[in-house]
């Protein structure tokens, strides 16, 4: 590639303006789309007021992709889409076509390269996830490995549209949740379970008052050990948020024996029918079991299958649980209900049942 002189360095230019990346048919029909249909799993048609039609073929991706895979995707977009494409908010690739005759040949080529087409309508589309052991310094589990293992098992749900409603899975590898999974139908969340260690060089690496203030439950207090300024942790007050480690590298809480995964259910962000909902705790802890986390895969699959069998058409997982009630959810899924399921943090009282509305 040609060399670039340092004087060409610019700052604060922002991203390229999007309009230069829009296919001519999109430019022509921008804001004029009239309706869409799902022609088959992974294939959409959008019809404009002008009569123009735009076809979309949606391809699943592992999110972590190399530049040769991007170039392969570009080759396909050059061949079938006049060199235009987009990505979705859930890491899928969308090929944009004007000729319906090219849809099936494109799908054949995508699948021949080992990538699936689907993720539309009443399906399980790609899992939104975080970095995990690939690139993060605070994870309680890996991200990509669990996602791969879960999607291998739920692959047919990506390629079909046979669920009662769409089902969105997300994974965050610690409570920082850079994947903001807290409003997903099923959320897989990495958890630490052992209070932080206090490294002997703490006072060199961290400011003591900031470290004390970092704890939302007041579990950290200043202390002097062997004449050296440090902190002490009241372990009973620790709820493993990890904020102390974020603020102070001398308080690591990653632990191979205790770190693992929790499972949360029933969240949504769409306003359709029911207002958006948070995900709620289903399973407090499953130990990390790489490389394929079979217990996590089984737990997710079980929830999906019980839901798929019992929910009514259009009912999202959270709407289904709200209708049948939590006692039935735990009974039908066979998940054990424990004291960990009962909230004891800031808004706990709002989650207690103050009625006789329940099933036995």
């Amino acid at each position, binding site marked *: *590639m040609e060399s*670039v002189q340092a004087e*060409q*360095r610019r700052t604060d*230019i*922002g*991203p*390229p303006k*999007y309009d*230069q*990346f829009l296919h001519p048919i999109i430019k022509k029909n921008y*804001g004029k*789309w*009239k*309706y*869409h*249909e799902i022609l088959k799993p992974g294939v959409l048609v959008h019809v404009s007021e002008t009569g123009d039609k*735009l076809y979309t073929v949606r391809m699943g*991706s592992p*999110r*972590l*992709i190399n*530049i*040769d*895979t*991007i170039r392969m995707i*570009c080759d396909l977009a050059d061949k079938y889409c006049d*060199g*235009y*494409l*987009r990505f979705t*908010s859930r*890491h899928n690739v969308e090929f*944009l076509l004007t000729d319906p005759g090219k849809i099936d040949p494109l799908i054949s080529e995508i699948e021949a390269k080992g990538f699936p087409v689907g993720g539309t309508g009443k399906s399980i589309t790609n899992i939104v996830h975080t970095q995990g*052991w*690939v*690139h*993060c*310094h605070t994870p309680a589990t*890996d991200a*990509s*490995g669990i996602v*791969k293992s879960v999607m*291998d098992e739920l692959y047919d749900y990506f390629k079909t549209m046979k669920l009662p409603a769409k089902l969105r899975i997300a994974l965050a590898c610690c409570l920082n949740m850079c*994947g903001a999974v807290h*409003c997903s139908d099923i959320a897989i969340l990495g958890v630490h379970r052992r209070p932080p260690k206090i490294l002997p060089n703490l006072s060199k690496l961290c400011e003591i008052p900031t470290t004390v203030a970092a704890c939302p439950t007041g579990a950290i207090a200043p202390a002097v050990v062997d004449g050296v300024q440090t902190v002490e942790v009241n372990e009973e007050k620790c709820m493993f*948020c990890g904020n102390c480690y974020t603020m102070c*590298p001398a308080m690591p809480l990653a632990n*191979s024996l205790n770190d693992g995964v929790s499972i949360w259910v029933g*969240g949504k*962000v*769409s306003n*359709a*029918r029911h207002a*958006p909902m*948070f995900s709620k705790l289903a399973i407090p802890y499953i130990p990390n079991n*790489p*490389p394929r986390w079979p217990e996590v895969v089984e737990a997710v699959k079980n929830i999906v299958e019980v839901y798929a069998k019992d929910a009514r*058409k*259009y009912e999202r997982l959270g709407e289904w649980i709200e209708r049948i009630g939590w006692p039935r959810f735990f009974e039908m899924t066979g998940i054990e209900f424990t004291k960990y399921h009962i909230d004891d943090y800031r808004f706990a009282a709002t989650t207690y049942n103050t009625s006789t509305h329940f099933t036995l």
Partner: protein
Amino acid sequence: MANETKKSETPLLDELEKGKWPSFVKEIKKMAEKNPRAKDLLGQLELSYKDKVTHWKHGGLVGVRGYGGGVIGRYSDSPDKFPNVAHFHTLRVNQPSGWFYTTKALREICNIWEEHGSGLTNMHGSTGDMVLLGTSTENLEPIFTKLTSRGWDLGGSGSVLRTPSCCVGPARCEFACYDTLALTYDLTIEYQDVLHRPQFPYKWKFKMAGCPNDCVASIARADMSIIGIWKDDIQIDQDAVREYAKNGVNIQTEVCDLCPTKCMSWDGKELKIMNKWCNKCMHCINVMPKALRPGKDRGAAILIGAKAPILQGAQMSSVLIPFMKLEPPYKELKELIEKIWDFWGEYGKNRERIGELIQRVGMGQFLDAIGVEPKPQMITNPRTNPFIFYEEYFEEEGEENK
């Protein structure tokens, strides 16, 4: 760079090459054949799979000249074993609105990244950026210079305006109630300084969703969620409704009965909607996009305060402005944003998101401070407790002299 890398054995990761879903391990392995960074990443990741912990050290401050964000510093805790990932910094590259690309533009980025980095990417990161995964400190400036020469810039990290993102919007969706791509681009350009240089108490995220389906999860993830809605009547094509009925949609049970406000009725010939009761949930429109469309008087609801759990618990955004027209140059919106940023800058504690600040001072105080009138759309119900902070009381005339 050292080319002599010890050969990595990866029996655990090999298990993740199996199965039908495309494999991230195959992606890394393919790069590892020609890129020493990718090769050592594979080795270190295998070690994490064995040890069940991460092997990245805490944090690390690196960046490009003049910026305080956009690069995530990362250092291996085992640089002796994996010298090629001793530094393995990530660059966030601000994506174009709606994640639209030409192949030409993508290939240029691939070429830059092939020369200067691991060859591995995330398309895309959670906030929306293109993520270039792993390079060493001395490559940051050359990459930045090359990216900007091609029209690209870095996204946000740390206590800055994080890279704004949006749904596909009017580019390919009939539900879009405002131009999400244009607004995202406009705000990103307008606020470049706070995007690149940390000046806030903590992070701030904008997400633009064109309709209440919220395909970018703005209500869960954005400090300011801008969600398209309409004010007037849903547009109905009665012939198309009848066609859906003929083709097997049970209009009564699948549409009318599932309407949360029960504002629809169907007599087998005509669908009637009491629009003044409609809460714009989108269900009927989602089921019959050929027959129903959002109204023509379109704009957005502005909601405030979503965040993940750290620290006071997760919050969703709540209504701040029930309806605002959104047309360039977006003067009203920008005035609102800047008033909020001023208040947050003044009163926000270190690492306090706006949603937490509002919890701490109370929504009423917050509205006073930014000059927004209270509206019943902001709440699910009025308070149930009688502990009201009345701000004034009457005094007898001449009381102070007694």
